[in-house]
């Protein structure tokens, strides 16, 4: 089977500082991988390198495109990469306002990606927007309201709808539950799990919350100082950590 995403020796430096170094892994269709580590461990740098927001100093990010098979997205032309990022890729930001147009209605937010790939029938676009609002548990009557009138959890769900409406195959998530109330987090996690399963999505989730990866991720990568120190099946890494740092990380979680 061809990996959906093959990350090969990605290195990103900030001057003398290492962002992330020599990171390699394959992600297969339907897999959800978590990346954990403390602030400054390089997990966000890595995510941004993979999603095309940062240009790595070395390495490849090979994506199995629909039309032309595996392609290195680091060296592909910008139009192609941007096309990917609004069709086959999705990016869920930690702060919904980074991923939404706050001055545009919920329906317009969801419809934008459709219109970006050529949808030109207002009724159909609106129909799909309402359908997606429903799937992320936002009432259809809110379709014309702006996200500024939404709660934090609703904004995050709207961001997810906006991202998934074009049926992407790979979703990048940066702390998707960060900053939300615990009760809102649980609902969002359950929603994400269902969407990942029903749409057969592959996802890469960056978080520092081990509970989030235990629930969402099949696989886990632990980063420290820009390097991957341990990787494997999520419950194996969390229940039988091998590396000193992972053991520290796991044992540092407060038990409720």
């Amino acid at each position, binding site marked *: 089977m061809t990996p959906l995403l093959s990350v090969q020796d990605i290195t990103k430096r900030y001057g003398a500082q290492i962002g992330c170094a020599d990171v390699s892994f394959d992600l297969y269709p339907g897999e959800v991988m978590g990346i954990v580590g403390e602030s400054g461990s390089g997990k966000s740098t890595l995510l941004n390198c993979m999603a095309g927001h940062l240009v790595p100093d070395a390495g490849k990010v090979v994506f199995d495109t629909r039309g032309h098979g595996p392609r290195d997205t680091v060296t592909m032309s910008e139009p192609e990469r941007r096309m990917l990022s609004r069709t086959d890729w999705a990016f869920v930001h930690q702060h919904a306002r980074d991923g939404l147009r706050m001055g545009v209605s919920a329906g317009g937010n969801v419809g934008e990606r459709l219109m970006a790939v050529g949808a030109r029938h207002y009724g159909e676009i609106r129909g799909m927007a309402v359908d997606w609002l429903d799937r992320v548990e936002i009432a259809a009557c809110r379709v014309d309201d702006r996200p500024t009138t939404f709660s934090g959890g609703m904004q995050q769900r709207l961001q997810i709808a906006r991202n998934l409406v074009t049926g992407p195959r790979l979703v990048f998530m940066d702390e998707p539950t960060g900053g939300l109330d615990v009760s809102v987090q*649980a609902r969002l996690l359950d929603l994400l799990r269902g969407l990942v*399963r029903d749409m057969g999505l592959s996802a890469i989730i960056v978080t520092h919350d081990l509970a989030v990866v235990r*629930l969402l991720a*099949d696989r886990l990568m632990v980063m420290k100082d820009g390097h991957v120190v341990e990787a*494997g*099946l*999520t419950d194996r890494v969390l*229940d*039988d950590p091998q590396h000193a740092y992972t*053991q520290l990380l796991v044992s540092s979680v407060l038990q409720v």
Partner: protein
Amino acid sequence: MIDLSNVSKTFTLHNQGSTVIDVLGNVSLHVAPGECVALTGASGAGKSTLMRMIYGNYMAQAGSIRVGGVDLVQAEPRDIIRIRLEVLGYVSQFLRVVPRVPTVDVVAEPLRAVGVSGDAAQQRARDFLAQLNIPERLWSLSPTTFSGGEQQRVNIARGFAHPYPAMLLDEPTASLDALNREIVLSMIEGAKTRGAAIVGIFHDDAARARVCDREIDVSRFTPARVA
């Protein structure tokens, strides 16, 4: 169906002076389809550790653990996940679920994961919940607030809803009353009849005697402790 050969397990506690604990050494075990093997031994002998290794939850330092033809010691995470979805079921003593997910969905989830349609999976989940005497009014609630016995039965329903060819049972009858204990034991017998290879831990002697074909005393794999 389940084959262990020369498996060993050590824990290295990096943050506690790099203490190395040898737990198990040289474990070899073969479980055929339709066979139920009980793991026995004193508390701390490594019964649960061995079980977790067979599930891929703990890493083995040496040897091979083959389930359904795949060596879980060497396998990629996605292969282990596939084996868990399709081949190897696990009923633990503890229920670990996403908060606020209804019980019926918790039970249906393993079926959904192997591609059973939503309606069919729900129906099968309801059948098992009914068989295990979980009151219907609880099905739409999250099991996180259930009593220990109810949670145990939800776990069993979840573990048995999909007919796995290999199963791991960790104290399946603990905290059950006589009636439900009887139901679970006959479910285990039913699984054996359809050819499931089962490894179990049973503190309930009568239950063990009834469903298990062999007993393996795990203490015999405990490496000689250097005094």
